[in-house]
């Protein structure tokens, strides 16, 4: 039995569900840790999440499938970069679970077409973004973009 490709990342953050939700959906916060990207994901199901790169270019327009602040957010992930834009959108599901004095954050990225080139990119991308998010919420400072993505982010993910 061959399982379908799926990316799962779990991390634990000393923060509250409300702060984690805001950090994932409010562009004035994402700008600070998401390597300069403005991600606006505060809409309702049926509306769109948008992302702009540090130069102001729109790089995502993703249909929001489910939004239940501050617990669960799901969107159809559709990057507008040339090499990805012809792929069918994949799916991102974010779950925020409050534990005692911390939050468990789970990101599942799945529903890829066979032979998708997006999976490898996001498998590098999510750990860097979520590591920076955790650092930002716990220390007030974010991390620098990893070396692979510093140019990729600026140039729209071209190799």
């Amino acid at each position, binding site marked *: 039995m061959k399982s379908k490709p799926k990316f799962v990342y*779990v991390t634990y953050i*000393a923060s509250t569900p409300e702060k984690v939700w805001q950090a994932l959906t409010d562009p004035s916060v994402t700008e600070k840790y998401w390597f300069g990207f403005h991600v606006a994901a505060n809409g309702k199901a049926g509306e769109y999440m948008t992302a702009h790169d540090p130069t102001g270019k729109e790089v995502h327009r993703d249909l929001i499938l489910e939004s239940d602040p501050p617990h669960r957010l799901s969107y159809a992930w559709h990057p507008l970069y040339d090499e990805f834009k012809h792929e069918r959108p994949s799916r991102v599901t974010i779950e925020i679970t409050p534990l005692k004095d911390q939050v468990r954050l789970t990101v599942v990225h799945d529903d890829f077409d066979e032979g998708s080139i997006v999976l490898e990119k996001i498998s590098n991308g999510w750990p860097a973004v979520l590591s920076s998010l955790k650092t930002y919420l716990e220390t007030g400072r974010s991390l*620098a973009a990893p070396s692979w993505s510093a140019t990729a982010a600026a140039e729209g993910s071209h190799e």
Partner: protein
Amino acid sequence: MSDTAQSSFVYVTYIRTAPERLWQALIEPEFTQQFWYGTRQDCTWQVGASWRLMLPDGRVADAGEIIEIDPPRRLVLSWRKEFLPELSAEGYSRLTYALEQQGEMVKLTITHQMDCLESKLIDAVSNGWPVILASLKSLLETGEALEATRRWPEGV
């Protein structure tokens, strides 16, 4: 996907620290007791040396030996669960830590592999590693490990 039947868990995290300090945290009990549920490792940290993960009550949780050690870049060890017979029966898995400095942070990659399909051990450690590594990151960046990992859970 691959020629040999294998189960694996891969986790990447970026930590604002130096490779030497991260290496020290992965090995020394003053650190591991804070982010790894009160446990410490019993090992001389040389190739071929036996390795044991000790619970606070003296039980051995996991055991194996050092396969490769290159401080502060790479550590590979064999790993068998010792106190849960169902998992011990699967035999030895292989754990690799890879540390790569990137400016003021370190990219830490953990790869835990077992040579069988649908390994119960890999399933179990897939649930365990994220909180341990999140707590390690918090400890090195803020000075405080996450509350949940500071002691061994009661009744386990």
